Structures are given as C-alpha cells and as structure tokens.
C-alpha cells in the first residue's frame, strides 16, 4: 500500500478532526477556526502540487494506484480535481466567515463540516468502484444537508435543508438501484478501465483466480441501470429534469453555503462523469451519449428560460447554473466524436465555471451583508459606490454569459467544439440551439449589470471590502481574466486529459 498518494485525504481528514476538537475544547474567537481551516486547505493544496510535480514519470502513465478492497485511483486527473476542490473550499471559507459572524450562525460546525465535505469530494475524484463512489457521495451529501439548514432560526433555511435532504436521499436511492443493476450486468463493482488480470493482482495480491473485468456489453438491462445512475449523478449536477430542488435550496440556504453547493458537489459530480462515463463506459458511449445530449438540451432550455424572470440573485444564479451544466454536458457528449477534445473541454469548463460562479457569489454575499437584500434591484448604483466590486461582478457575469475574451467564453468554445465534433455534423442543430440560448441568457445576465451601471441610488454608502474578500475576489477575477487567454492552463489541461 502506498499511502503517499492518499496523503491529501488523510491529512485533511485529520485536520478536520483537529478543528472539530478545538471547537469542542472551546476557543473564544471563532476567527481562529476559520484561519485554521484555511491553513489546512492551503497545506493540502501544496501537498497536491508536490504530488503532481514530484512524480513526473507518474504523469505519463494512465491508470493509477489501487488499494485492497477498494479501487482508489490516484492519477493526474484526480489530482487536478483535488486541487480544484481545495481552491473552491479555500475561496468559500474566505468569503463565509464574515457572513457567518454577521448573521451569527454557528461557526463551530461550519468549518469542520466544510473540511469533511472536501475530503468526500477528493475521494469521489479518486473513486474507481461503485462502493467507494457511493460512500464518498454520502460523505458530501450528509454534511451539506446540515449546512443548508445552518440558519436554524430561519424557516427558509430549515425548509432548504429538509428539501435538500429528502430529494437528495431519494436520488441516492435511485443511484444505488442503478448501481445494483450495473453490478448484475457486469459482475463487477469496479468501473475503471484495466485488464482483469491486473485488477486481480491489485485486489487480491495474487495472479490466481477469476475476476470479471468491467467491460459491459450493451444491453437493455445495462441501459436501464445506466439511466438510474445518470439520474443520480445529474441530481448532483442539478441538470434538468433533476433540477427542481436547486432554486429552492439555493434560496433558503445561507449564502456561503449556496455558493458552495453551486460549485462543490457539481465539480465532484463532474469528476464522476469523467471517471465513470468517459474512462469506464467510454467504449459504449454511443449508448449513453444521447441521454446526456437530451439532458443537456433540456438544461440549457429550462435553465435559461426560467432565469429570465428571476429577481433574487440566488435563484437567478441557480437557474444560470442549471443552464451552465447543460453546456458542460454538451461537451461531454463530444466523447462520441473527438474524445480528447471532450475531456479537455469538460476539465477546462468545470474549473472556469467554479471560479466565475464563486466570483459572482462573493459579490452577492458582500452586497447582501450591506443591503440586507438578495434582490438584484438593490444593486442599484453599485458601479458608482464601489466601482471595483461592480467591475468584478461585471466580468463574472460576462464570463458566465460567454463573452470573449473571458475564460467563460474559451470554456464554451471548447464545449461547443467538442459537441460539434460528436454530432457527426448533421445534428448541428444541438449546437445551434445552445448558441441561441446563450444569446438569450444575455437578457438576464445584462439585467444584473443594468441595475449596477445604469441606475442611481444614494441611500446606501460604499461597501467596505474586508481583507478576506479582497483575496477571494482577486483570485477569481484574475482567473477569469487570464485563464482563458494565456496558454499555461490550456497546456495543463491538455496534459491531464491525455
């Protein structure tokens, strides 16, 4: 057993327990907990970078490493996702401590739970069998239900938590059912691509005996199981028609938690998509790709149309997130065409999506603390009072809308290119619809900007930006500006997608 490649998870888990223990012992200043968690995440991220760069030979080799009982993959792609999760958690922690204090929400629970969720997400990115996949998914979900209901005094928050819990538990059950059918079809819980002999060696340590490799052939039963698995994963992605929970949960949950729900679990679900569908089931992609194509279309249409009428920034971003996931799935569908491009596009977009959403939520959190409102009408005159903040919202929103040269555009460019390659050039209509709806999305994205830039309001003074927000805002804003246009990130993604 090689514990080095598990070190990120082990470290963060221990750190989370320590933070929990410190809170139990009792610290006066809750800020200490925030700082501790931030330091933990930062160390963990550094650890990941060491792993990624320390083994250059490792980058050449696909596959990864396996542990007895579970198939735990540690390859460049999982490290990429883990770094992304660290970044997401880091930014969410940065933007939450002030808000929690402002609303006097329990902080002692918030930080350790966030760290536990991050561990769960990391495990999900490395999961090579269904058992591990399910366990890590629950490790993410259960703390998230608690976090959504963090604002116990508030009815909306309690409702959000309960709703999230009921629908989430239901989707887990569906996923589990799908897994059982898949197990019945293939006789194996392991879904990553490897030869039966290799796996036997890995799992039992001997080369004797029989083991079924995961190489399902296409059949009706398999398709049935796949549909359930897809439903379970799409619930986490909040892709239509499994999206109903997301606007309500987003609206009710405290803002930092909403920010996290809008990116964290989605990024983890995308890791599963990459692992299970592209790596594991890539051979029968013609079987599942059409399902995703339809889900993608539905998400794009439903998300964009519903977002048009929203006034609450959280609901607006919820629907925008639904449509964004639609675009992402469209890129995934590209697997039937240019496989490499499909991988690149999905890996690229999920990182970009996370950062632009976090940028928008950071501004929203600051505004909600100052204006005590989550309606976009209350952003009136923001550009005059706090031009910097307005500028960051501007680039975040334009990037979400896919306006060049921001990262969101480059991401969408990859996705559309990938989708285009798959549709055998006859179903161009899918891409056309996606493009038309991304134009429609301008209506609601520009509406946010309209209030900020073209109207005046003298009632509230300028917003003072706390230091932690400054860090978060500058990280996300710089990423949106330069990630797309400068080559290094492209090269990294190219390398990882290989």
């Amino acid at each position, binding site marked *: 057993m090689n514990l080095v490649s598990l070190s990120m998870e082990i470290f963060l888990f221990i750190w989370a327990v320590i933070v929990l223990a410190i809170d139990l012992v009792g610290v006066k200043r809750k800020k200490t907990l925030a700082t501790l968690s931030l330091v933990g995440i930062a160390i963990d991220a550094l650890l990941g970078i060491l792993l990624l760069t320390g083994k250059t030979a490792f980058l050449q080799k696909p596959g990864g490493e396996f542990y007895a009982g579970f198939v735990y993959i540690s390859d460049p792609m999982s490290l990429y996702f883990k770094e992304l999760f660290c970044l997401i958690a880091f930014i969410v922690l940065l933007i939450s401590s002030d808000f929690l204090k402002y609303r006097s929400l329990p902080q002692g629970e918030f930080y350790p739970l966030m760290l536990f969720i991050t561990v769960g997400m990391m495990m999900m990115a490395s999961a090579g069998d269904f058992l591990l996949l399910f366990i890590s998914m629950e490790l993410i979900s259960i703390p998230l239900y608690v976090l959504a209901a963090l604002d116990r005094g508030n009815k909306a928050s309690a409702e959000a938590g309960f709703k999230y819990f009921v629908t989430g538990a239901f989707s887990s059950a569906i996923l589990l059912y799908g897994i059982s059918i898949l197990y019945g079809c293939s006789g194996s819980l392991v879904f990553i691509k490897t030869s039966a002999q290799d796996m036997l060696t890995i799992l039992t340590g001997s080369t004797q005996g029989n083991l079924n490799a995961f190489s399902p052939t296409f059949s009706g039963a398999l398709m049935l199981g796949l549909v359930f698995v897809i439903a379970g994963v799409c619930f986490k992605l909040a892709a239509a028609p499994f999206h109903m929970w997301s606007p309500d949960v987003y609206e009710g949950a405290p803002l930092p938690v909403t920010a996290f729900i809008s990116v964290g679990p989605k990024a983890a679900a995308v890791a599963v998509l990459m692992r299970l569908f592209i790596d594991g089931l890539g051979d029968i992609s013609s079987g599942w790709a059409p399902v995703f194509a339809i889900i993608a279309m539905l998400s794009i249409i439903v998300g964009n149309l519903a977002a048009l009428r929203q006034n609450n920034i959280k609901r607006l971003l919820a629907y925008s997130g639904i449509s964004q996931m639609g675009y992402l799935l469209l890129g995934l569908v590209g697997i039937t065409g240019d496989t490499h*491009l499909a991988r*690149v596009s999905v890996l690229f977009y999920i990182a970009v999506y996370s950062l632009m959403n976090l940028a928008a939520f950071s501004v929203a959190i600051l505004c909600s603390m100052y204006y005590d409102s989550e309606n976009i009408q209350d952003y009136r005159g923001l550009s005059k009072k706090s031009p910097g903040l307005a500028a960051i919202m501007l680039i975040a929103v*334009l990037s979400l809308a896919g*306006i*060049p*040269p921001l990262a969101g*555009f480059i991401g969408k*460019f*990859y996705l*559309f*290119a990938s989708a*285009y*390659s798959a549709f055998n*050039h006859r179903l*161009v209509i899918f*891409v*056309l619809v996606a*493009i*038309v709806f*991304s*134009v429609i999305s*301008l*209506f609601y994205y*520009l509406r946010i*900007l*309209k209030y900020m*830039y*073209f109207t005046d309001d003298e009632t509230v003074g300028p917003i003072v930006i706390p230091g932690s927000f400054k860090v978060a805002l500058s990280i996300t804003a710089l990423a949106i500006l330069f990630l797309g246009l400068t*080559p290094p990130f*492209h*090269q990294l993604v*190219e390398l990882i997608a290989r």
Partner: protein
Amino acid sequence: MEPVILTIMTLSPLLGAFLILFLPREDEWNIKLLATFSTFCSFLLSVYVFVAFDRNLGSGSLQFLEKITWIKGIGISWIMGIDGINLPMILLTGIISFVCILVSFSIKERCREYFILTLVVLCGVFGVFCTQDLFFFVIFYEMASIPMYFLISIWGSNKKDGAREVRKDYSALKLTIYLQLGGGLVLLGILGAYFLAGLPQGMARTFSLNDMINYANLARGVQIILFPLIFIGFAIEAGTVPFHTWLPDGHSAAPTALSMVLAGVLLKMGGYGIMKIAIGLAPQGAHFWLPAVAVLGVISLLYGALCALNQTDIKYMIAYSSVSHMGIVLLGISTQSAMGLSGALFQMFSHGVITALLFAIAGLLYEKTKTRSMPDMGGLAAKMPFIASLFILGGLAALGLPGMSGFVAELLVFMALFTANMPLFGVLATGSLVLTALYILRAVQRMFFGEPPDRPLQDGQSMELAPMIILVLVIIVLGVYPKLLMDVMNSSTAYLAELLHI
C-alpha cells in the same frame, strides 16, 4: 520593429485604456490626451502600413505577417497579416478611430469609463481586420460589440417622436442581442469548417484562415450548408434587410462618436467577414448562394432608401441610408467578379468615411440646436454656414456625385453588375440613386434652407470642425484619385474572384 507592427497597432488602444484605468477620475484632460495619443499611434501605423504595402506582390499572399503559436492543442495561433482586402479596412479604422476620439472631446459625464470602453471597441475593430486566425477573430469581434451595450445605455440618447418612444436601453439591448446572435452563427460556421476541413494527411487542425483557404478541402455539400450560416451571421452585422432592425435604433441611440464607429467600421466588419471568411472558407457554397445574396442586396438597397425617405429624425435617416448603402456592397460581392468585389470594398471604405462625417455633423447639430428632428431645424445655413456646407458635401458624396469617393464605388459596382449579366439588378440599383438623391436633398433642404430660426445659434468652432474636415479631405482625394485604393485592392479581389470560379 517591422514584425510586430500590426500587433502594436491593434493593442495600442487597449494599452491606452489600461493606462487610463490608473488616472484619477477627475483628470479629464489627461484621459482625453492619452486616448488621443493611443489612437493616433494606431492611425499613424495604419497609414505607414498602407504606404509600405507592396502593391506588386499580388494574389492572396499576406504581408507584415506575424505568427506566434498560442494554444497548440487545438491549433490556435496569434496571426496578424495584411492583404489587399483588409488593408483598406485598416486604414479606414485608423482614420475613423482617430476622428471619433477627437469628436468625443465634448464628453463630460463619466469621462474615464467612456474612453476606456471606446478604446476597447477600437482595439476590437483593429483586431478583427488584422487577425488571420479565426479564433482571435471571434474574440476581437465580441470585443468590438459588447462594450457597445454600455456605451449606448449610459451615454446614448432616447428618441421621442410623437407617440413612439425608443429608449436607449432598449436599443442597446437589441443591438447586443442581434450582434451576439450574428457572432454565434459565425462561430458555428467556423467550427463546422474547422472540423470538416479535410486537411491533407499529417496536418493538424488549425484555425488559421490562410491555411484553411489554401489547404482545406471542404465538400461542396458542406460548403452549401456552411456559407449561409456564416453569411447570415455577418449579414446581421452588416445591417442587411431583413436582419437590419437593430441598426437604426442602435445607431441613433448611440453617442455621436460611437454612431460614427458603428456606421463607419462596425458595419464593415460584416461586409469584410462575408468577403474574407464566408467566401474564403466556402467558395463553392458562396458560388451557389450568391444569386440569393444579390436579391437581399437589392432589397436592402431599395428598402433602406425608402425608409430613409420617410424619416424625420436626422440620425434615423442616416442609419437607413447605411442600410441602403450596404446593399450596394452585397450587390458588388454577388457579381463574383474582381471589379464587383473591388467596388464593394471601395464602397465600404467610402461609405465608412461618408456616414462617419454625416453622423459627426448630426451630433454637432444636436449639440447646438438640441433637436434631431429635421422639420424643427430649417434655415440653419444662414446661421451656421460651415456646418451646412460640410453636411452638403457629405450628402453629395453619399448620393454619388462624381469627384467624390461614393461615385467611384457605385460606378464600379454598377458596371460589374451589367458585365456580370445581371442587368435587372443593375437597372434597379441605378434607379435607387434617384431615391438616394431624393432623401438627401430633401434633408438638406429641410434642415438648412427656408426660414432661419430666431434663436441665436453659433457656427462650429475650428476644434469641432477639424475632425470633419479630415473626413471631407479623404472623400475628395479618393474621388479624384481612386487609384490610391484600387492599386491595393486589385490583386487580392482578383484572387478572391478566382477562388469563386474554381
């Protein structure tokens, strides 16, 4: 220095915008100075490139070529280069951008943001014309159109005309949505060409326009599907009927300088895109569809002129005249001959200068008289003779008076129409000149002649008139000596015409 000249020219306005970011908000004078300086650099470089361009090199070869590999994985490179087709457009952009910054000196409200956004637009326009990489083309295209939303919404003007009111944020949104849709269609077409290029064995996929034109081997059926996608995308941008409705609203709501940029160069991005990208990528598709394009062209020409005839708002009239004049560009392209293509290109250049002039005067008149309605003006020639004579000069150029640039362009296109065996189109197009003359002369008569107004009005100051005089000079020089531009274009348009007839 030579290898990076185009990059400097393109990025100079962007650098200016970046520097302005660090100037204090109140320091309006330095902001304006910096903006002027950065566009002046681009202007000088565009003139230099125009002079230094080797006119004898011929065919589709690029000059001043710069190439840096950007994202290798999907074949994106930073390629800048000049041939006979984009060179006139670059010169036009150089002139218009410099003049438009001069005209913007009267801006007082939120000066810093205004200049930053305008400079970003100008950088985008330069980029669109200079770049030879389709990916960067899309990026620059959007850079040139998105800031328009803010420029119109903040610094634009509403129109109240009896019962019908056109609010500026409505116009801005309409313009943005239309241009985005156009951009989306173009993107779709480009992606199609990218994946179906059928490049020779061993050649990686590329977004380089030149490589695509030279090596791509698109099937005819594919070209027939791709051409309309790209064409409609650009036709929206070029304000072709029936995709033109954003144009009058957008142009009229925009602040003066931006009306000039919109009509002067942004419309030309559409025409240029059709010539360079739509025809370049899908010549056989173009050959198939160009007769239909001719119909659209003639409809734009006549419909635009009829609408212009019916306007009372001066800016709306100029905007509809743009629709009409862009119809001539389409007609020129649809002849598929070197002469017609040269005429189209010449028309784009000349129309860019002429409408910029007309919009500049309309803006100045609005500043002085506080009205845009032509019947409310009347008799202004007595009070402001300079402005009146400049407008009349511009108007005469627009209706194609010999000795001015508009005449050369229209003559070329009409001759090409008759030689290309499209006599019906030729007759209709020539006939439309009557309509053009009608609306221009009527506007001149309504605004400048008749009973002079009682209130005291000042004629333009030299500072205000300087930019317009530059434009008038360009119009006359080109009208008298069209060879200046023709020399540059001829070999490239001949090459393009050849491409169409393979």
